[in-house]
Each structure stands twice: as C-alpha cells, then as structure tokens.
C-alpha cells in the first residue's frame, strides 16, 4: 500500500472557552479524528457548521496545533518540523480560505497578490514568466487581464474568492486545502473552478482536501468523501457510493436537506426532532458515553445511548461510525 500524502492520527483539538462566558468550558472541535488522504485524489470533507472542518484545515496548514494526535504530511510529522523545514513545506501546501476578504491585501493590485507565492520559490521565475503565469491563472478562474491591475475592494465577493483561488494554485502545490472555496461562486465560474481542480488533479497529480457543505459540489468532483459530525469522522468512502447509499443516518439527513433545482417549495414536513435534539448543544464537551448523533437519529436504539460507535468497515472501502449501519444497507435508498 502506498503511503498517504496526509495521515491524520487521532487528532483532538480543544478550545478553551473559559473567562469569556459565565463558566469556563471546553469546546472539543476535533475529537479523535483519524483519516488518510491519498496523493493525487480529491478528498471531500462535509459536515455542518461548527463541526470542526476549518479547525482541521488550520491544523493541516500548521496554523494551529492539536491538543493531541499527529499529522504525518508526506512522511514527516508536521509538528516535529523546524520553522525552516515548515517554511519549505508550506510551498507545497496551499490553502484557500473560507473568508477571502480577510486574506487579500487591500493595498496590492490583483496581479501582485496572485504572483506573491511565486516569490518564495527556490527558482523564482523571471518577471515575464511570472506575468504570464498570473495571466493564465486569472483566465483559468474567469478573470481578465484588465482586472489584474485593480485592487481587491473593486471586486465583488465572488470575484475576490476567485483571486484567492488563483493565488493558491499558482505555484502548482502538491496539496491544496480548500475551505468553502467555491460555495460563494456563481454557477458558471463554480463549474469552471471545479473543472480546473479536476484537471490539476488529473494532469499534475495535485491533491485536494475539499471542505464544503455543498454535497452536490463534492459529488461532482471528489473521489473520496469524509462526513464529519461534532468533531468526529462518522462516515467515509468513495464519494459516489457514499451519496448513492449513505451508511450513516447523518449523511442521509444531509442529503435530504440539500436543495435542488428539481425540488420546488417547502419540503414535505419532517418529523419534528425530539425535544432533546433541540436542547443538545451543537458542539460537545468531553467525549460522552453514547453516540453524539443520538438526539437527532431516527435509527437510534438502546445500545446507542450506552456505547459510542467507532468507525468500522461495513463494505469494502466504506467506513461508518454507527451501530445500525446494517439497517441502512437493506433500507431503500
């Protein structure tokens, strides 16, 4: 078996919420998360707001450190690297942030912003070559040469997001962590960027960790997908198989909630979630006993309250953290 590009081992990240609120509290943003990402694949991560997706992304970019656990990037433990080694590694690992407004320098012209990562390359391309690459990149994300001379504030939200994407892709990194990178884009540009991502993977072997809440987008490009719930990985497997036949009740809930151009008006009333579900905080404290999804789960049984399900293989290549996954195997899709 080849070594994965990213090997995430039992990652836990607690945020201290003490001092600011009435009583000190811990938010466990990541809870014993283990997963691997193979080189040259597009690996989707889906899950609801606050489930820890951005925390995971920040740790992979070494912008944050885990409370416990490790990340092996390309064979080396990320948190054992010296600052210099980390710098070198950074060139191969780029990130597109969820919020492009904070990440674009307002005083720089777009051409300069996009070219910036080229300046730290060992072999810095010539001025003309840089210019050429910037223009090709801008075109690839649907912006034109005239716009290269303008400043970020002169662009709309979607346009700024594309500038951020162009900047991340310009050095042709090995890994791109994209946190909600296309959610704010228009359909046509979104399709262009998704095609670009697929092409970079196919032709240059770039690996993408593609974080989004948009299942259709993941379904359109991802090879593998991981579904997160409250800091844990609850399901993983080939994207197509996971969306066609979810093996975790939460994945099914996500798929049902997704709007579509073929579903008009208010969806048929869902059974009201039990009162306990509404009372349950979305983020959880220290690992509890039972399954974190229990309050919202239509399949829950007695075992679910007593024992937290661990991720296990149910079908070849398909993992799920649910005691009753077998029921979903036989249930109509």
């Amino acid at each position: 078996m080849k070594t994965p590009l990213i090997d995430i081992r039992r990652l836990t990240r607690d945020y201290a919420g003490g001092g600011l609120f009435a009583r000190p509290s811990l938010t466990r943003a990541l809870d014993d998360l283990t997963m691997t990402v193979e080189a040259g694949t597009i690996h989707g991560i889906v899950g609801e707001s606050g489930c820890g997706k951005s925390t995971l992304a920040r740790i992979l970019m070494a912008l944050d450190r885990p409370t416990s656990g490790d990340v092996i990037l390309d064979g080396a433990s990320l948190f054992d690297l010296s600052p210099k080694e980390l710098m070198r590694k950074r060139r191969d690992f780029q990130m597109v942030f969820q919020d492009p407004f904070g990440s674009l320098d307002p005083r720089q012209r777009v051409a300069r912003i996009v070219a910036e990562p080229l300046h730290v390359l060992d072999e810095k391309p010539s001025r003309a070559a840089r210019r050429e690459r910037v223009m090709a990149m801008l075109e690839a994300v649907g912006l034109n040469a005239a716009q290269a001379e303008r400043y970020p504030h002169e662009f709309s939200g979607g346009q700024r997001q594309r500038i951020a994407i162009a900047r991340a892709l310009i050095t042709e990194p090995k890994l791109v962590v994209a946190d909600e990178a296309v959610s704010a884009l228009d359909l046509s540009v979104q399709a262009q960027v998704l095609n670009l991502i697929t092409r970079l993977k196919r032709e240059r072997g770039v690996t993408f960790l593609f974080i989004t809440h948009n299942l259709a987008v993941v379904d359109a490009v991802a090879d593998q997908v991981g579904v997160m719930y409250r800091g844990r990985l609850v399901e993983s497997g080939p994207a197509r198989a996971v969306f066609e036949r979810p093996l975790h009740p939460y994945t099914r809930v996500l798929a049902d909630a997704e709007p579509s151009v073929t579903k008009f008006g208010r969806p048929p009333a869902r059974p009201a979630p039990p009162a306990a579900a509404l009372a349950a905080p979305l983020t959880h404290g220290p690992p509890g006993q039972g399954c974190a999804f229990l309050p919202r789960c239509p399949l829950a049984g007695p075992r679910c309250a007593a024992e937290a399900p661990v991720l296990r293989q149910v079908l070849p290549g398909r993992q799920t953290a649910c005691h009753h996954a077998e029921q979903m195997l036989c249930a109509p899709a």
Partner: protein
Amino acid sequence: MSAAPLLSVENLDIAMRLPDGGRLPIVKDFSLTLQAGDTLGIVGESGSGKSLLSLAVMGLLPPAAIASGRILLEGRDLMALDDDGMSRVRGRRIGMIFQEPMTALNPAMTVGDQIAEGLVRHEKLSWKAAREAAVDLLDRVRIPDPRARAKAYPHQMSGGQRQRVGIAIAVAMRPALMIADEPTTALDVTVQAEVLEILDDLCAREGMALMLISHDLGVIARMCARTLVLYAGRRMEEGDTRGVLTEPLNPYTRGLLRAVPRRRVDGAPLDTIPGTVPGFARLPEGCVFSDRCGDVVAACRAGEPAWTQPRPNRGVRCIRAQQEMPA
C-alpha cells in the same frame, strides 16, 4: 392607500461615478413589483448588480452611485426621503441580511447586544427585555447554548454562526420586506434548511415579502414563487420559478441551469458558459450576453433587445425568444 404594492421599483437605472468625471451605467431598465407575502428570487452572476439593487432599495447606495427612476415602498417614494427618514424605514419596514456577515457585525459589541440594539432603538424595549428577546432569537436561528453565546463577540463564532447572528438581527424587527443577499451561502445544508424555514414562516404567516438574492438555484426553487434572472445589470428573464427553471426562455438561464454541479458518469467536465462576465465598461454591442451566447445571431448585435412579456407573468429580454414564441 388602496392597492399600492408593498414595493415597486420603476425604471431604475444605477450608474457609478468615475474618478475622471464620467459615469458607468450598471443597472438598466429595472422594474419589479412585490406584494405582501411575495417571494422573489434574484439570480445572477457575481458583479451583475444584485447587491447594488438591494442597496438601492435600502437607501444604502455608495456615494459614487447615481440612481434614477422610482422606488416606492407602501406608496412612499424612498428616493425622495432624507437620511433620517430612510434610516427609520430601514429599521422598521425593511430588513436586510447581508452576504458578508463580518461586514454587517460590529466586532467590538457582543452579538446579543447587537441584536438587542435594534429592538431598543426601534421598538423602544428596555435593554433588559431586548437582551432577553435576543437570546430567543439566537435560539430560533439555532445557535447552541444561546444564553452563553449572546455574550460572545463575532470573532469567537464560526462563519456559519456569524451569519445566523446577522439573520437574527434582521428578523428581530419583523420587517414588511426582507432583502436577503446570499443569506445561506455560508451555511451548511441542515442549518440552511432551518434558516429557510424561518424565512418561509415569516412570509407565510406574517405576510413578509422576501427578495432573495442567490446564485443557488436550488435555494431559489425551495423559497421563491417567482424568479428574476439578472445579467450585467439587465433583467434577462422573469416568471414563476418552476416555469423559469424547467422551461427557460433565455439562453443565459439555460446556461446557468446546465452549470449546476452534478456527478458526470462519463467523467466529462461540467458545462460552463464560455467566456467571462464582461466589465460594464466593455459591454458588447446589442444584447449584453451576445459575446457568450451560443444562440447568437446577427440581429442580436444590432441593438439591445427590449424587455417583452410573451405570456402573462413571464418576461424575457432576448430577440430569439421573442421571435420563437407563438404570438
């Protein structure tokens, strides 16, 4: 006031003043009517002028913008109001949910107080009562542990949580018209479904009118009875949502529908609309979509197609759609 619609926008044009003294037209020939309880989706690519449109209705156009035409809310001409009058209308009658939650939030004030502020100012609630109401509102937009979170500052929340705070602020005033600019783009599907339900309830039960700006056609299908497609500041198509999304008349609408992400079994790339949105300074001659349109004919470049209504409740701006419609 008999049958004055809740909102009527008549022949609105918006241009931006340029540093060299010239002006750059952006929104042209825009009209719409909304009654209480109406839900209108506005679809259009980035830079097509959707935000400027909503800012115009809110009276919040940037200083560089020049608007002409009329915007009537409950029969009152908003463009004739002074800043004070407009800010009263904004607080009480029109609510807005912004695309970028961070820009709408005050980083130095707790989110609970930001929600309470409007209630104190416009509803004359005491701070105590308003803070209590704020906790309820945070709960309604499903912020976990609302009482504790009311005391948090925006930077302590995730992007999706901040957006829900923005929604709570807007919903607090129970506006007659809600303008929501990409309100759920930053939200995941389950929270999005809940937020859409909150907005839906306000429309259905309290007659709130909704102008929902989104590039997510699924969200529009879920929420809006009517849909208007905007391109380069022009209305390209309007009609009942099902009609527009299942039988589009304008080639641009068809292009958008084809670009909806989906898994391609054959591994072929997703369909895109060729080219990019032209800058407003370099719009093509004639139809503004003619440089990207797959159906373009010579006549398209001869002059800008007029807005026509081929059927009742259906409008389109396209020479060919006009010709091909049975008279």
